[in-house]
């Protein structure tokens, strides 16, 4: 398909505009899209993100009244770096690690959209900053294993795993005790 603006390059940007129920399709190449300002929002990640952050704001306008929580969230300010939620929504970036806690309750919908429905980390745990998370994850995993073994009636194996869990839990207790 060729670009409908320059009729030279192949169309690589395909947009469907729906304005008041009128649907128009646009097929242009990247250069023409930039020149004509098509898809400005779809190209700039920032705009896209801030669009996401304001999602519940947009729906609240259409329903006439803004929920109190939204109003409140807009005034929330990070105690460490001073970034407000409004500012965060505008720049699409966090100001510091503390922002994650400050805006926590607003973040799940955002992460879900950006990361295909995921909201929780499932990867590497740093050696030091992770604290005893390694240990707790391992216990969790062993417990899961234990249940599976019991389901399969492999009791001998299960007993071994149970002992491993006890050992790990003791280790965790000792470490926590050491911290206090």
């Amino acid at each position, binding site marked *: 398909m060729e670009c409908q603006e320059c009729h030279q390059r*192949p169309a*690589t940007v395909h947009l469907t505009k729906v304005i008041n129920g009128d649907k128009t399709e646009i097929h242009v190449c*990247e250069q023409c899209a930039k020149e004509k300002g098509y898809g400005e929002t779809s*190209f700039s*990640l920032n705009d896209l*993100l801030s669009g996401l952050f304001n999602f519940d704001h947009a729906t609240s306008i259409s329903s006439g009244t803004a929920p109190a929580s939204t109003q409140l969230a807009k005034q929330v300010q990070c105690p*460490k*770096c001073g*970034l407000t939620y409004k500012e965060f929504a505008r*720049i*699409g*970036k*966090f*100001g*510091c*690690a503390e922002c*994650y806690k400050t805006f926590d309750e607003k*973040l799940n919908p*955002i*992460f879900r959209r*950006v*990361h*295909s*429905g*995921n*909201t*929780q*980390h*499932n*990867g*590497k*745990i*740093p*050696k*030091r*900053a*992770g604290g005893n*998370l390694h240990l707790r994850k391992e216990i969790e995993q062993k417990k899961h294993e234990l249940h599976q073994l019991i389901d399969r009636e492999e009791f001998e194996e299960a007993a071994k795993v149970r002992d491993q869990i006890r050992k790990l839990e003791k280790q965790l207790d000792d470490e926590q005790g050491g911290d206090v």
Partner: protein
Amino acid sequence: MSLQNFMNEAISPWMKEEGPDSDIVLSSRIRLARNFAQVTFPIIAKEEELKPILDFFNQEYAHQSFKDYRNLELVEMSRLKPIEKRVLVEKHLISPHLAEHSDHSAALISENEQISVMINEEDHLRIQLYYPGFQLEQALQRASELDDWLEEKINYAFDEKRGYLTACPTNVGTGMRASVMMHLPALAMTQQVNRMIPAINQLGLVVRGIYGEGSEALGNIFQISNQITLGKSEEDIVEDLQSVVRQLVDQERKARETLMQRSGIQLEDRVFRSYGVLKNSRIIESKEAAKCLSDVRLGIDLGFIKNVSQNILNELMILTQPGFLQQYAQETLTPDQRDIRRASLIRERLQLEKK
């Protein structure tokens, strides 16, 4: 190793080593975003907050060694001329963002340029590690070790629920972007790439041009990377990317075979015409140069052209970028002057191969 070495050679030492599937996969890269727990992120941090991070790197990491990577060089951006920064961007050693935000920013670079840790980029740290060819697993392993080495002295911003905390919500979790640079001339020639891109996007992967976001696929070089960083482990992300890359490699090989069978002579003609253009032109734009270089590289892979090294594509693609041309000329050049310089540089380089 001085800054001069990073500047003079277009092709990084690690690129000269041959990797698996290097006829199609030019390089594999892992990038990890990390932050200091107690410091405001660079985008809104004040100068007096960022300077200590740079000082800390000068003290703790400059001229230190990590494994076989000896005498790591800390290159401070504020000490570089604009053209020098541009050269580092063209070599993918630093990001355009780092070049633009030069106050208190730097890059910790290994002698063979395989490692580059950017300091005070969008995040406090962007750890980058390259491998030649298709070696994502090796790159991940090594990057993770480098990450551990850095963590020994740095308190990372990490949260049990959200993982590694980053300035941009698109990087949170693993903070990892895994990517490969692929040369896909046959898939591009047969118009198959454009059909594949949407399918690849649906798998949570992104396809871009050689110089990242928004850039064109100059010389039929495509960069493919993961989009999602939260909820999946590093190993799973790499595995997903690998399986797509593996399929693309197979498809490209098939397309090359088909082209050879159905229109071998046309293909040969195209390759040698492009070779002729590169050998003889006196003025050449970067776009045309990239197209011809892609053809010539394909010609080498298919055995039409002998006695020219495979690296010619990687090397000349970088060497003929505006920054490099000007660094080479040691003066600022207008676009017209660059086109002339580019042509003569390519001719010289191909002459060199003859010997």
